[in-house]
Structures are given as C-alpha cells and as structure tokens.
C-alpha cells in the first residue's frame, strides 16, 4: 500500500511539473501599438507662371517641384484644370497658335509629373487618369508647358487658370 501511494505521489508531482512546463511554453506577451496622428505635410507651388514674349513665344518656370514631408508616401490622385477670368482651357494638341485668332483667351496645358503626362483636352478637362506616387522625403518635378494665341492686349500677372492637385495616402 505504501508503495502504491509513493508511486501515485510521484506521478502527481511529475504531472504537475509537466503542466507548469506546458503553460510556460504557451504563455503570450501582448504587443501594444500606439500610433500618434500621422502628419500630412507637402510643399507645393502656389502659382505656375507663364510669360508670352513680344514675339509670341511661351516661357515657363523650370524649377517647380512637389515635396512630400509626410509620415509616409502620398500620391496625387487627381489633377483638375479650370480656366478663369474669361479664359478657357482647350485641347493642348489641337490648339494651333500659329493660326489662332489674336486675342482669343484660350490656353492649353501640358504637365509631366513623375513620368505621367497630362494634357488639357477641352474646357476644364484633361486626360489625367492614374495616380502619381511620392515617397516620404521625395521631391518630384512638375514640368509644364502652355499654349496660347498671341494677345492684342498686354497683361501683367493675370490669372488665366487654376490647377488643383488632390492628394491621398499611398495605401
């Protein structure tokens, strides 16, 4: 009888140790994450400048960039082009400035942003159909061109259109 009790006691102790050992193998440690509000920060031009010279040639700035200072990558999800102050955006490819009547307030735009080319295709229309990604800390150039007929009246810093770039997280 004593031998039986000794065996049972031994088995009980062994099984208890096994349970503890098993529990130690499966214990979990939670990983908790706190995410502070992710800062959105981009640097963009507030104006795109165009000069039409006395001989009708168009010159534009060539140092325009968009810089992403945000916590992560962002993307340009849309570009809208709208004529203002009596000006209309027109088909960039279809506008022949050599034969267009003098003084007509039509302007066509071409943008090259991060390998994506966008042109105006009509009044307040363009063919931007994708998105342009800008990685964290990256600056991408905005190369642009404009076409417009010769003007009979000299203008100084007159707004002819507005361009809106819409941004979103690159998810």
């Amino acid at each position, binding site marked *: 009888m004593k031998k039986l009790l000794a065996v049972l006691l031994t088995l009980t102790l062994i099984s208890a140790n096994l349970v503890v050992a098993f529990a130690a193998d499966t214990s979990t440690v939670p990983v908790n994450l706190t995410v502070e*509000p*992710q*800062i*959105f*920060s*981009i*640097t*963009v*031009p*507030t*104006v*795109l*400048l165009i*000069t039409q*010279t*006395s001989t009708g*040639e168009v*010159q*534009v*700035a*060539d*140092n*325009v960039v968009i*810089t992403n*200072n945000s916590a992560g990558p962002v993307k340009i*999800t*849309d570009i809208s082009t709208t004529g203002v102050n009596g000006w209309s955006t027109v088909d960039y490819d279809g506008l022949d400035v050599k034969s267009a009547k003098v003084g007509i307030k039509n302007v066509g735009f071409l943008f090259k942003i991060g390998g994506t080319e966008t042109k105006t295709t009509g009044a307040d229309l363009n063919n931007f159909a994708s998105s342009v990604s800008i990685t964290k800390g990256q600056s991408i150039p905005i190369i642009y061109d404009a076409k417009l007929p010769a003007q009979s009246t000299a203008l100084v810093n007159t707004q002819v259109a*507005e*361009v*809106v*770039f*819409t*941004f*979103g*997280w690159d998810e």
Partner: protein
Amino acid sequence: MIQAKQQQPTDKKREKILVIILLVVFVLSALLLSYQLMSLVGAKGTHPEKVHKIGFRADDNSTDGTIKGKSKKEIIAALNKKVAEMYNTITMNPNPIFADGKAKGTLDIINIKNHYPQVYEIYLKDTNQMIYTGGVEVGHKIETSNLLVDLPKGDYTCYLKVYLVDPATGDRIGMSPSTPDFLKVTVLS
C-alpha cells in the same frame, strides 16, 4: 491818236513782264506740287493725320540698334525666382479629433518653411460648408482649436484650402493648389 501809238510799245513790254511772272509762278507751283506728291507716296502706310507733315525729325530718344527683350534664360530665371518665393508647405493632422462639436480638436497645424503667414480653411466635402478657419504666423503652430460649427457625432470627409497672406496688408497672395482628399474630421460625441 499820236498818244495811243506812243503807248503801244509800253503795254507790250508790260504784257511780256506779266507773262514771265506768271510762268515763274507756274513753275514754282508745279515744283511745290511735285514735292508734296512725292511726300505723299513716301508716307504711304502711316496714319492719315501724319500725311500732311513734310520732312523728317528724329526722336531725341532714338538710339542705335534694335529693340531686344529679355533673353529666354533671363525670363526663365525671373520666373524661377518668383516661384521659389511662392512655395507653400502645408502641415496638419489629416484626422483631427474633437471630443464633441464644441471642444477643441487636434488640428496640429504647423507653419514652417514658409515665407508668409498662412490661413487654413476646412470645408465639408458634401456641403462645401466651412467648418474651420484660422491664421498661423511663420514659425508658429495650432495644436488644438475649435470648429466654427457645433457638429454632431460622426466622421466628416473634408477638404482643405490654405492661403498665403501678405503680413503687411493682410491680402491673400496665393492659394495652395492642393486638396488632401483624406482629410477626415471626427467628432466623438
């Protein structure tokens, strides 16, 4: 009768003199007319009011050479300089949270890297109603602030307009051509 005969040679002499004078006047008139006609031909294409002027007088301000504007390089350099002054860095929390419609929310607007003060405006995308506007000086921040309207609990998709402001006049001198479409305002209760 004798007197009449004596006067005949004198009259003929006078007639000759008169004819000579008339011939001289005619020749001079013809020369003058020719000169005027030549001037008219030379003035073809000018304004009518200037046609009657005869002769030429150079403008005292005229100089040698032709008129030249800025070179392509000079024009682009001037454009680049202006663009460089007009960059706008927009920095804010794209998901500001408000405990309720009257509480201050976590806007985290920062005006750094800019040459001008900024005005931020937040609009509801559905109704275009402006729900926040606030100015921030260069080097300053707006960590929290209140909405213009007491919005009920919910998540609101918004868009943003950011203006640069001339500190001397208060005039808006440029708007950022950007609208983050992920701007979401959350009101918790």
